[in-house]
């Protein structure tokens, strides 16, 4: 990647407002974003964990050729293709923080690649656990729309690649837990009211019981951070993609309606407490001189609730969501293009958030 493309890529990394986090879309005041991911492999080529560096490069080349032919039109917007070995370790970590590649993809970068639409809504990881992992992101609960785009791009890629497919088992994947459709759909939801009311575990147990999985904002082990939960399908075989998506959407809609029900009660009976919490968060975020990412995420959740209730004039959900990106440790270092100690990061993070909020007039 050279010249103009490299500049564009750097701008994407430094950008803190991704369209797929702009608060738009169905049920956007609770459902943050929707993701559809398809796992695909090439027939009779060893899966990435067994590929030699040379063969991995061949797969990469083949995929990039095909993607080049699919082009801007197929992807619905201009794209960048890059081998991960051409990207600095810091840039890779920023991609992880922005949910554009997996943490696993960022370690040992040989033979790995990334295709990325400029607006961050479409990405393909090449040679992650599978040869191709295509993801489409959308703001709000918009799984159908995400699926249509993902499937369309998948169709076009298939014209240039021999996909590993079996009539009985379907798409063949490195791990049998993904075989069949290769589809993992997930929705990120913000559930502050259910958390306050201590009803999270009841709701999530119910979600679990219908065969769906719940993770945190930054994957496993981050459950509950910022009161954000990712709900996704577990089963990929024996159901059609449509069934998987409809099932997940239905459950998410139920969770959202529970959250809204509790929010309404909260607002009716404890309005002053809710406002107090929201404006304390605003006060801290717009004045603090030092802030850890943990504290920032906690306050982010309160502030987002305020934006969801339209409590703060001029502050949109999209503005608030940017704080999530601004708070990430690698992102902070990216903005200042330097390695920082944890202490220095806390200071710079507070700076970034303060400036961001004051630019929005709050």
């Amino acid at each position, binding site marked *: 990647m050279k010249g103009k493309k490299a500049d564009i890529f750097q701008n994407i990394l430094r950008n803190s407002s991704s369209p797929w986090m702009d608060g738009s879309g169905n049920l956007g005041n609770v459902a943050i974003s929707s993701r559809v991911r398809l796992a695909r492999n090439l027939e009779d080529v060893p899966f990435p*964990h067994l590929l030699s560096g040379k063969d991995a490069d061949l797969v990469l080349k083949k995929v990039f050729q095909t993607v080049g032919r699919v082009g801007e039109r197929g992807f619905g917007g201009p794209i960048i293709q890059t081998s991960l070995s051409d990207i600095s370790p810091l840039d890779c970590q920023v991609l992880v923080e922005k949910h554009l590649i997996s943490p696993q993809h960022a370690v040992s970068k040989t033979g790995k690649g990334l295709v990325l639409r400029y607006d961050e809504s479409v990405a393909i990881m090449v040679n992650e656990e599978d040869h191709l992992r295509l993801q489409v992101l959308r703001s709000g609960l918009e799984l159908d729309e995400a699926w249509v785009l993902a499937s369309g791009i998948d169709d076009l890629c298939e014209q240039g690649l021999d996909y590993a497919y079996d009539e009985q088992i379907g798409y063949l994947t490195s791990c049998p837990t993904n075989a069949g459709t290769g589809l993992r759909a997930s929705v990120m939801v913000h559930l502050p009211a259910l958390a306050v009311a201590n009803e999270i575990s009841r709701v999530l147990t119910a979600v679990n019981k219908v065969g769906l999985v719940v993770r945190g904002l930054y994957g496993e082990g981050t459950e509950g951070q910022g009161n954000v939960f990712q709900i996704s399908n577990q089963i990929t075989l024996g159901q059609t993609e449509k069934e998987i998506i409809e099932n997940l959407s239905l459950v998410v809609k139920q969770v959202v309606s529970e959250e809204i029900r509790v929010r309404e009660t909260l607002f009716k009976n404890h309005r002053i407490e809710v406002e107090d919490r929201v404006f304390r968060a605003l006060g801290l975020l717009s004045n603090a001189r030092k802030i850890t990412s943990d504290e920032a995420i906690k306050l982010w959740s309160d502030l987002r609730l305020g934006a969801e209730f339209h409590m703060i004039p001029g502050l949109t959900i999209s503005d608030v969501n940017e704080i999530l990106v601004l708070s990430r440790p690698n992102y902070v270092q990216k903005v200042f293009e330097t390695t920082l100690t944890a202490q220095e990061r806390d200071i710079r993070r507070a700076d970034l958030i303060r400036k961001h909020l004051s630019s929005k007039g709050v």
Partner: protein
Amino acid sequence: MLCEECGKSQATVHIERIINGRKTTMHLCRECAQRSGFLTLGVLFQPSFSINNLLSAFLGSQMEALPSLGPGTEGPRCPVCGMSYRDFARAGRLGCSRCYEVFEDRLEPLLRRIHGSDRHVGKAPAATGEGAQIRRELEELKKQLARAVSDEAYEKAAELRDRIKQFEAKLRGNPE
């Protein structure tokens, strides 16, 4: 609700399984669930618990059930990637798409345990899709034909035979 296994602790893990097409639910305490190896969906809440652990839990019990093989008898290896089933059980990853064919006998039950099914009903690549679709419909028609014959519905059977012939012709014009 108390745990079905020990009857002492509170049941916090509820495991739904599909056995021979019938859904059953087990209510266990966390400890018993962990001990019995039924580490399934309910336990995925635990931060440390990943899908790969889930898979190795499945594989673990499957490997124990295998008759012990002597040294050097790892069973067949995949001609494309060289993996044995034992390698797969250890790594939790298959080596390539051909592995699915080579280890079919053992993978199908595994897929059924993970997904409750071993039959893909979703999207197919356009290149194989049309043929697969016709084959599936053909299978269905043959089933109907057998039923019609055993019901002595000969008129319907004749009609079905004609349609089967049409589909078979289509399939010949539409090789894999």
